[in-house]
């Protein structure tokens, strides 16, 4: 097991800069996810680490070994010398090889002796719970089974790092959730350093030790799933990770009686908990839809952060309900399992606790 360090990676395709100075670190034995919308540079970054693309600038280290560096005279280790394992989006199982041949390929490339190959293939197939599948061909397996063969193939030669290129995106929803858990267990069991690439934020939340949020070739935020969700660093992260109501407001210099910071959003004044002293100025606030409490009667006087508005739209998401609320010139999205039954056009009141309002950016 080794750690991965990426330093100042830049990759241009013609005039487009796909990766624009990305640096991050995957600690030994941890699972880090590159998360972002399509075209954010996550796949290019992964391809550079795997050796399918050469960077224009920057360096990639596995442990203390430099495997890629940009510019003239840069170091480019071909992919077959990097000792990495990789699982692809559509698995990339070789259809003309049996499961055992697929799994043993990497061992044969490393000139492992015949007896060892058999034993290691067995062990790898046991790890992914596919004992006895060795003689089958990929076309005879279900999607989930093919997926596990791909993992066995990537892990069998004990690579330094495991690279996962959206490996769950081809599975149907139910299976995807199951495989997600299995993948996490597999990673913890083998303790392999893993870099995971996905555009699915729920997936990223569920299995990562750390998430690197990418957008347009740059890093927007690095942090644990909780940090990313609870305290998004900016508007992009707030809206990309889950749904968020992002509001623009002015901080007033005088705190309220309870010591909370007051922020004026349009006609409304919201009280929030803010670390440190605030000196005023413009900020962006983020409020998650599930943090709202909705009632049909006005709450008692003195309750902080109450807004009232008209229901514009209601969406039933299966369990969770969603209301779109028009408050003055703004639209708010509210979600919850126990929202009251309302009609479109009805007036409702919504409140949010001061600690659930996050300041994501100061605009000087």
């Amino acid at each position: 097991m080794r750690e991965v360090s990426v330093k100042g990676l830049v990759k241009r395709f013609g005039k487009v800069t796909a990766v624009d100075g990305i640096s991050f670190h995957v600690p030994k034995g941890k699972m880090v996810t590159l998360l972002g919308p399509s075209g954010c540079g996550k796949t290019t970054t992964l391809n550079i680490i795997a050796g399918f693309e050469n960077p224009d600038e920057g360096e990639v280290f596995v442990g203390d070994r430099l495997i890629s560096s940009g510019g003239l005279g840069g170091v480019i280790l071909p992919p077959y010398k990097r000792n990495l394992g990789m699982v692809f989006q559509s698995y990339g199982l070789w259809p003309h090889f049996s499961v055992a041949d697929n799994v043993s390929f990497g061992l044969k490339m490393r000139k492992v002796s015949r007896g060892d190959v058999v034993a290691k293939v067995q062990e790898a197939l046991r790890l992914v719970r596919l004992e006895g599948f060795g003689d089958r061909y990929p076309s005879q397996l279900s999607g989930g089974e093919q997926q596990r063969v791909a993992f066995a193939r990537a892990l069998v030669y004990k690579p330094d790092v495991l690279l996962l290129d959206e490996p769950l995106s081809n599975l149907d929803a139910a299976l995807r959730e199951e495989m997600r858990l299995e993948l996490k267990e597999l990673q913890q069991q083998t303790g392999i350093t893993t870099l995971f690439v996905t555009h699915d934020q729920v997936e990223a939340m569920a299995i990562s030790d750390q998430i690197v949020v990418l957008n347009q070739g740059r890093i927007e935020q690095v942090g644990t799933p909780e940090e990313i969700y609870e305290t998004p660093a900016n508007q992009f992260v707030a809206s990309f990770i889950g749904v968020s109501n992002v509001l623009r407001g002015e901080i007033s210099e005088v705190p309220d009686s309870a010591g909370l910071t007051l922020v004026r959003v349009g006609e409304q004044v919201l009280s929030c908990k803010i670390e440190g002293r605030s000196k005023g100025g413009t900020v962006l606030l983020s409020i998650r839809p599930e943090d709202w409490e909705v009632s049909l009667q006005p709450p008692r006087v003195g309750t902080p952060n109450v807004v009232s508005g008209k229901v514009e739209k209601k969406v039933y998401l299966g369990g969770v309900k969603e209301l779109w609320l028009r408050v003055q010139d703004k639209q708010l999205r509210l979600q919850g399992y126990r929202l009251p039954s309302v009609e479109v056009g009805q007036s409702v009141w919504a409140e949010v606790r001061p600690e659930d309002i996050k300041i994501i950016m100061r605009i000087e």
Partner: protein
Amino acid sequence: MWKGGAKVIQRLHLTNLVQVGCTVLLAGLVLYPLFWLFMGSFQSDPRSFSFTFKAYTNILALPFLGEIIYNTAAMAVGATALAVLMGVPMAWIVGRTDTPFKELLTLVALIPFITPPLVGAISWYYLATPNVGYINVFWKWVTGSKLPIFDIFTLKGLIWVMGLYVTPYVFIFTSIALRNMDPALENAAYVAGGRPLSTTLRVTLPLVAPAILSGALLAFIQSLEMFAIPAAIGVPGDIYVFTTEIWRMLLGMPPKYAEAAALCVPLFLVSGFALWGQYRFMGKGREYTTVGGKGHRPRVISLGRWRYVALAFTLFYLLMSTGLPYLTLIYGSFIKARGLAPTWDNLTLLHLWEVIAGDSRPLVVRAIKNSLILGFAGATLGVGLATVAAYVIHRTRWRGRAFLDFLSLIPLAIPGAVIAIGLLWAYVRPPFNLYGTLTILLLAYITRFIPFGVRAVGNSILQVSEELEKAAYVSGAPWGTMFRKILVPLLLPGIVAGWVLIFVSMMRELSASIMLYGFQKETLAVALFLIWDEGRFEYVSILALLIAFLSLVPVALVRRFVRLGETREIF
């Protein structure tokens, strides 16, 4: 597993070598003879270096130049028109209507495509010679008329036979387009109230128009470059076209190499222009003839009583292109004397024995040997080069790949005669001195048919996910290992299809062979042509059937055993 931190400077990888090597090789094959063709047209003799316009002025001074141009144009345009008139309705009949036996018809319609044109031309020679041709004899017998119904040795006869054998290009292109068309497009027209006829005319046909045009342009190129049919049908009627005229120049004493080269230049330019057009239209066609609409099938149009008309139309084509010619050859192979009625008493196996043991035996044996050597060596080398080229074109981001793609395409626009004259100019001199060897034929064949290989393997590569390659690299396989162990096995269907296509094309090749073959280096097609020239009907029939057999069997085998979509698209 590897020593950490080892600094591997980016160096000359095997892939770089392969890319450059295969481009240089292909450029040598394709451009070198073309270069010498142009050079040659400005010289007076292959052995001297001079610059002169004499070849061109000589050609312009030819008294019958206008006639040759007219004949060539009339033949190519007429045959192409005939091909569209027969190919498009047939494709629609088998692709969209309830005409009986359409699966069988589709299969049989491939036979004229696979049948070597020389075989077809020779059988039509016997079928429609004014006085003794079987069709005319039959006509006179039935009607009591003294005049033949059809004189094949006319421009009309030439167009007719040429049309029969280039029709498959239009038929196949249109069929594929109809099959690949999203049925939703037609269904939408039906739902919107379109009747079958108006839907066909206003939706279906416009959608496949690029494919029709593209097939028609290929048919046009084929008609231009064809030697066999003008030689067998045109020459006896004193109708010369470019290819036969070039051949006549080489037969002269001394051979007019420079004039032949000068005559090749316009021929090449016209087919090059046509190919460029074909490429453009095909490109346009791709935009909307996409496969889509899972599970939907195009609606079958019920023709009612008209379906027998449709069947008759298709059968008429098949009878003319396949039935009658093959019956003639079978008759000729086993009949005691030409003109006898095909009764049991008049049949004999004697001709077969004479071919095997008679005085033409050395030629036949030699020709079979030469053709098989050329076919096996050529198809193997050709498909090998094609596989590497297809890989570079489709799977690398190398800058030169567009040029390589272009190189692998131009031979389609180089008529056999042009390649032959170019090779003559390029390789008669030291250090090559290849004139009259099998090697020069091999070079001509590989050059001519490499596009088939690149296309067949290329189609296969596009169906193999790039992840399979990447997975091999990540697992620790260098490029060469990946290519051998992963890519080649996966591409095998395409490689086999390409091999067979090249092999079959080489077996029948005549346009270039007839100008390049040397002493005792006859190929099967050349031998057939020589024996036909001597007028030995029985031998000709047997040899023609043998050549047809050598084409039909490999194609049938590959269709039987390589069950993959793309081979069906190729054949």
